[in-house]
């Protein structure tokens, strides 16, 4: 028999044996037989040196090719077998999911609500007491609702102030809950009082005090006569309810294209002024965008930084904890 015939036979018998291996154990046994130290393919390779030099090169190449294809066959058979073995295991584990079993998870210790939930629920309660309806809006927003109708046209430098995530469809992830003002003006009729808590996004690098995902609560009141004095009243009331005492506050000019005049509200805390929330009288153009006559109606709006409030409330030093999902963090709020 020629060497070529030998090799062909070896190849065919090896491949046949591999594909016939019934399980992983049999396959491993076969691997030792063929490719182990004393395996037939290994031995064939060892005898190369006895082959006459003129044939050695071509036989060697063929042998190597044979070894490679057998190894490939092993790999694919192993995959098939382990999958079917897993499949068998899963099948053995089958349960009747329709059984009306009455049972509960054996949890350990008390559960917890997320600190953002706790603060948000508290604020919602305060505002509902003041006659504000809690509303929602989409997180994937149109440029129109997030910018345009809030008096931030495409060329406005304020767009730089809020680096934005854009979707491939040309929409965006809302950069503030103020977009809900626009949605509310479209769907509700004045007079109205709303608050809108929610998740907002900024295209920002993360560190202990910066997040690309955080929470705000927008508030808005529209009525026949709204004054800066009213803004101060509601903000004072809110802070009294949150802190339980009359906090010392100040309003100072702050620029937001959708309010005029616009303010930053600072609170006196530990001997210094802390920036707490932006607010202002709703810009007449924003009312017009919402189809409301600014000569007849006015309003005020404010934006509470919920994440920031939560962090100072519970003395959380790293904003990334809020969305980290770490039980060691979460269960502290049980």
């Amino acid at each position, binding site marked *: 028999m020629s060497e070529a015939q030998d090799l062909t036979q070896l190849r065919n018998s090896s491949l046949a044996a591999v594909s016939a291996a019934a399980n992983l154990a049999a396959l491993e046994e076969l691997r030792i037989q063929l490719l182990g130290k004393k395996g037939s393919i290994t031995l064939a390779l060892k005898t190369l040196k006895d082959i006459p030099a003129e044939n050695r090169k071509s036989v060697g190449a063929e042998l190597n090719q044979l070894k490679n294809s057998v190894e490939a066959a092993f790999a694919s058979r192993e995959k098939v077998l382990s999958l079917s073995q897993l499949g068998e295991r899963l099948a053995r584990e089958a*349960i009747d999911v329709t059984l009306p079993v009455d049972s509960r998870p054996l949890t350990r210790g008390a559960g917890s609500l997320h600190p953002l939930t706790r603060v948000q629920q508290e604020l919602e309660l305060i505002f509902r007491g003041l006659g504000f309806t809690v509303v929602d809006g989409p997180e994937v927003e149109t440029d129109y609702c997030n910018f345009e109708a809030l008096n931030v046209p495409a060329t406005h430098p304020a767009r730089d102030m809020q680096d934005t995530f854009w979707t491939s469809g040309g929409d965006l992830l809302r950069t503030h809950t103020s977009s809900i003002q626009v949605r509310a003006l479209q769907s509700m009729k004045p007079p109205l009082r709303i608050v809108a808590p929610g998740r907002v996004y900024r295209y920002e690098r993360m560190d202990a005090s910066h997040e690309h995902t955080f929470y705000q609560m927008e508030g808005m009141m529209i009525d026949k006569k709204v004054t800066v004095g009213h803004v101060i009243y509601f903000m004072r009331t809110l802070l009294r309810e949150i802190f339980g005492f009359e906090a010392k506050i100040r309003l100072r000019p702050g620029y937001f294209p959708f309010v005029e005049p616009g303010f930053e509200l600072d609170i006196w805390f530990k001997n210094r002024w802390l920036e707490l929330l932006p607010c202002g009288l709703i810009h007449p153009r924003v009312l017009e965008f919402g189809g409301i006559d600014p000569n007849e109606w006015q309003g005020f709006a404010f934006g509470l930084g919920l994440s920031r409030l939560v962090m100072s409330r519970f003395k959380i030093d790293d904003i990334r904890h809020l969305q980290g999902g770490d039980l060691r963090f979460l269960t502290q709020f049980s």
Partner: protein
Amino acid sequence: MRISKSWLSDYVDLDDISPERFEDLITTKVAEVDDIELCALPTADAILVKVLELRPHAQKTGLQIVKVSDGKNQFELACGATNIKLGVVAAYLAPGSRYVALQSAEAGEEAVSAGTLAPVTAREISGFISPGFLASEAELGLTSDHSGLFLPELTNDTLIGQSLSEIVGPPDIIIVIDNKSLTHRPDLWSHFGFARELSAILKRPLKIDQDRFADCSVAGKERLQELRGEARSNFSVRIDPLTPCARFTALEIGNVRTVASPLWMRFRLAAVGAGVRNLLVDLSNYVMCDIGQPNHAYDADKLSGDYLVARFASSGEAFTGLDGIPRELASEDLVIATKQTAVALAGVIGGQASAIQESTSRVLLESATFDPVAIRHTTKRHSLRTDASNRFEKSQSPYSPPLALHRFWQLLSELQPQARIVGEVSNSFPAPPAAVSIPFSYQLIRDRLGVELGDLGIKEILEGLRFTIEENNIEENNIEENNSEEEDNQAICHVPYHRATRDVSIAADLVEEVGRIYGYDEIAQQAPLIVSEPARRDSLRQVEDQLREALRATGFSECYLYSFQDTEFATRAGFSLESAVRLQNPIDANLGCLRVSLIPGLLQCVERNFRYTDRIALFELGRAYSSDGSASAAVQKRIAAQERRLLTIAWASQDDETQTGSLLQPELKSGAAFYSLLGLVRDLLRQQVPGKLNVLPATIKLNNPSHGFGVLRNWMHPHRQACLDIEGVVIGVIAEVSPALGLELPQRSVVCEIDLDAIRRLGSKDPLFQPLPRFPDSFFEMSIIMPNAEPYQNLAELLALDLQTLPVFRRSEVLAVYEGAPIPAGKKSVSVKFVLGSDERTLASDELKSVENMLIARIVGSSYELRR
């Protein structure tokens, strides 16, 4: 922006204003002060000394021993600076005084970092002990110049021995304001701009009025024409049609010299953070910081031809700016060019080739107004922001360029009396904008602010801010509205040029002007008179709050996870991202789309927590997003994506699943984790929605696959999964996590996801009272043998055919499921208890028997058999 109080004092008297009051006034009435710096420079410590003798150090080349006099004593110091000369005056720092450290170092026992004050000590240098040293400008904190000694050129020697602060003035106060806080105020990008505000706030006059040079007035126009000299200018300027350049002016000045700037100018520039180079360059910067208008001085001898033009760059046009970086321009970039070549990237940076040099003797001073949007795009395109571009982006007034020409010339002619203007101002101003006037009513301002402030008070505030008020004829108003109790006087407010570019355009803007100067602190809180109406309640929010409270009470913890989807993992878990909302600019390439389900994120969260704990009970209430939601609504009301509100719960433990210790029947050998989460979910749903919950494996019933549930996905254990169905509506999915997913999870991890919108749509129903049973219930038990693989549900449905028709049937309970001898292999025995009862009587035993027989007949007629 850094603003120097001493610089402001050129314009307004601020001597009696303390640093605290200064900061407070600016913050509460103008813009938030980020920081206030008291420039405690070591200038008071430095003593002016005269150099008497110089001799080289014996060993060390380059080092000299300097004998100096402070007027009383003479002493020797070591000095390595090359600009030291006999007879000059230098600043001496004795041991014990302090200097600005230039590098981080160990000073004695303390570590000193660069830029902070360090103590001067006597130091030995190659065998010579120097008692202190002669300082550079940088070491004195005056500028960043450390190339040589600071050598003030004194005209007489009377100051020798005195403190350096005698010539550089007392320490200045610098306020630092974030540029973002000034986005809306193009007029505040200069000292004069802040001086205008302080003049209005403090009701103090401006000592120098730079606004008189604005040529929106006749007088301003005349003043611009007075800027002229002998001969004809060698240059004219023009603006190419359609170029976003509102105005282009230039002034040629000859017979100038490039020298160092005077000390006071260098100190001021250093104090506000500007670099210091030479007089001509420094002047340009100084003028910008002083009056706000960016400007640029070209070496006129480097400009070819006889004109400069503002034009668009040609695509690919090469330009090298003062920063030495060659750039390829885009056709949207704006340049200033000679006939041959671009000499400035307009409004952003001057060109290297025409920069001021030692040899410069003739300058062309450009002062122009460029379109804010065009400038903004150019700065973004080339990632190049400068003090000039920052100002142009905010909409500078086109009436401001003359201010820069006047100020530059005024300062230059004082410092270099030999300088001469050549010809006249070259001025291209194709379309001067009309003045902005706002009709308003005094009452509207009072109403919006909620204050009682008279017309005169309002007028005084606005005029203090350089608005002018034109009263309407009051009599006419009175005739029209003679009934009104309050006089509602109408007037017209003319906006000053520096506020008219965008900032102030409507009456609401005037409300803000009056409010901030009047003082927001002066406005009293005021409860509104409103119609009392209860707040409406959102049913979804109620559902969410009840669910999270119920889960918390069961020991689950609420988490908030990110909306961005790990696309690789989600795909591996078997979620199609075909309709996912994709991002153009994700934070990370693998977080390229928004989550289509909360499950992948929660699974990864369980895996992270498994490093610390082996019993994990988590849930999230959140949204999943898909892009198939954009209906064809009008632009205004369009919804950008479909957002589903989901509740996703994960329960994972290392418990051996046969040792449940729970209410689970011990006969059930496996599935404890699955059954227990399912039991909890059953409870949650019972509290929310009427209707019976059906639990169906996805392989049996494929319901509305677009919904997202009812599909067997990779993450699910194929034999431990089900979709949750309430009266034909699939509302969720529950499954054990498949080990094939390859996560490091606890032994058994079960996840359930529920669509809250579906729950809300199903609605809740008040329970209706049922009379309490007056007669005891009866029951009987049966064991039925059925194929192992067949779900109990099939049996339940079969028996329901009869049971549903029986008014006495109350309920059935599964008591046990048994496999093994004597039950044949592949089969299981299910024991069921049937409870029957009536409100009218206790059921007789034959009544029970007939029901039992009916069920037996049904079973015998089926593929199941009765276990006897």
